[in-house]
């Protein structure tokens, strides 16, 4: 049994079958990549895992509990954090404030009317946020307005925000899409470091083969909403069906 079990998931948008009978099992403490050409249904699948979309049929179990019908914030509180295709951070807030918010969510839950003590008096939160910023190599940017960070640093911050919650499953949707090479390598290094240093399961959707093959332990290939094969990176590289559906297209 994997930490994440997807069984028989179907999702239609009008006449379009975006997901057709998807089965997927992600083993605990592995990096599992989901690849496939544009429009294959990768983002749709991910949205079904985090409560943004509800599948028409099928089940999604996380750690033995169904996530279906729960709001995104409830699913996050179960231990799933998500990184978006374009970094979603609090652009009007400083880097430090960005980092403190998930720490509050972890400590106080989905809502807490904490209106009288000052933020400065929350020593445990400050300490936690500072140590994660340290880990992310962003301590020197703590007072910066987060909207003025580079694309790569925004991604780094977003990943840090997710990690500060110590999620059991981290979901990443094309974390390097639209990034310059340097930022991409930067992000790969960060993810490698996370994978080596922490007990965490990572499911990553990626278009960029370089990223996939340098990180993943298992790969599922999705084409037209249905998983074609699931295997190790070495076997995927040589798989004829995959070449046909995916690699052939990008080569």
């Amino acid at each position, binding site marked *: 049994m994997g930490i994440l079990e997807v069984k028989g998931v179907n999702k239609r948008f009008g006449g379009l079958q975006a997901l057709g009978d998807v089965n997927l099992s992600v083993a605990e403490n592995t990096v599992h990549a989901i690849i496939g050409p544009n429009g294959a249904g990768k983002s749709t699948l991910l949205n079904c895992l985090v409560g943004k979309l509800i599948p028409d049929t099928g089940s999604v179990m996380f750690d033995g509990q169904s996530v279906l019908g729960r709001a995104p914030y409830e699913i996050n509180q179960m231990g799933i954090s998500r990184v978006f295709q374009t970094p979603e951070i609090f652009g009007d*807030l400083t880097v430090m404030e960005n980092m403190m918010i998930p720490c509050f969510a972890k400590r106080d839950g*989905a*809502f*807490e009317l*904490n209106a009288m003590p000052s933020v400065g008096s*929350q020593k445990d939160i400050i300490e936690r946020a500072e140590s994660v910023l340290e880990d992310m190599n962003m301590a020197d940017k703590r007072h910066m307005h987060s909207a003025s960070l580079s694309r790569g640093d925004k991604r780094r911050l977003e990943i840090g925000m997710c990690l500060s919650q110590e999620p059991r499953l981290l979901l990443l949707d094309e974390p390097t899409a639209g990034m310059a090479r340097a930022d991409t390598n930067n992000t790969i290094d960060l993810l490698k470091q996370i994978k080596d240093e922490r007990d965490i399961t990572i499911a990553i959707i990626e278009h960029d083969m370089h990223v996939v093959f340098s990180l993943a332990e298992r790969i599922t290939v999705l084409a037209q909403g249905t998983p074609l094969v699931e295997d190790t990176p070495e076997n995927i590289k040589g798989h004829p069906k995959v070449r046909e559906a995916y690699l052939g297209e990008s080569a």
Partner: protein
Amino acid sequence: MFGLDKKDKSLLAIVAILTLLAPFILNPFPTDSAMAQFNAGYPDLMQRFVIFGIFAVGFNILFGLTGYLSFGHAAFLGVGSYSAVWMFKLLSYNIIPAIILAVIIAGLFSLLIGFVSLRRSGIYFSILTLAFAQMSFALAYSVLSNPKFNLTNGETGLQVYNDDPQILQGANAPDLPHLFGLSMRSTYTMEIGPWAFDFNAGYYVCAVIMMVAFYLAIRIFRSPFGMMLRAVKSNQQRMNYTGLNTRPYTLAAFVISGMYAGLAGGLMAAMDPLAGAERMQWTASGEVVLMTILGGAGTLIGPVLGAGFIKYFENIFSKINDNVLHGWFAFLPDGLEDFVVTIIHPFVGKGWHLTLGLMFMMVVIFLPGGLVEGGQRLAAWVRGKRNKGKDKTTGKTEPAE
């Protein structure tokens, strides 16, 4: 002390000094001088300054922090006034129960309206609040005022009559709103040479309450809750995927700002024991939006400045009529005098809205951060100038602070 940092403490101190000394500050011109009409230090207007200050400070907790623009906050102000007058009618003219009930009822009412309106965001939220406020206005104006069930006394407005129960009204307590016997109307006038300064009990009650309200707003701004509200404004999607439920945060902000509005409405009734439906009209809701934006939404002091500014204009500019203008420009040749008066005429007196509208446009276009941004730019400019002056005299550059 107070759990504030140094900067906030000095801000609070400045506000305290300005409000306590307002009778002097607002009456700079001798009573008999031609400029006396610009004096704003009379009890009525000073009370309005601080009451609308409270209203705007509360509104800013919702609008400034979460970005949710309510067009219906006057409804809570009106509900506060009606509740307070009912307390006068049923219990006594003591303002304490009146103000407490005003805050509680406005809080409950905003819980209801907020719960429904916050199912939408952006323009739809604004429209919903507007619709609710106009419904409340209609209810107060006609529906809830019929011989069988007269809650609001319709067009006439709710007031205290001789045959009202007033079960706690003591035999020799003042026959007007009072604080344990101290009448809200009692005023001591201090005359110094040609100057006169009014110290009014009602004003000081409002001023002290405003300082408490302002202090609580600072605490909210600096709290984890305040940070969450700013996060709502910045990125709700990220909040949801960070395990935070945005709905109760926005609802709490809505109710808090509704309670501030109710407090302002209660104080209004405490200064003048009368509540009318026009207090709930959409123009009144729009006014607090203008105050907040003009002063600087999302800043602490901005809404207070905006409220003072607009109330000053409403009461002072509106009094400048043609006679006054002719007086000012009497030194000009006759034809020219008439011409100048004709040009200025539309902008003063009844036309003060025109001036206010123009100023509002200028602020929104050139100072999106409102008067507070204007002040900051001015301060930066002065500092820059002073530093330059220093460079010239000493002949060497000072290290930056």
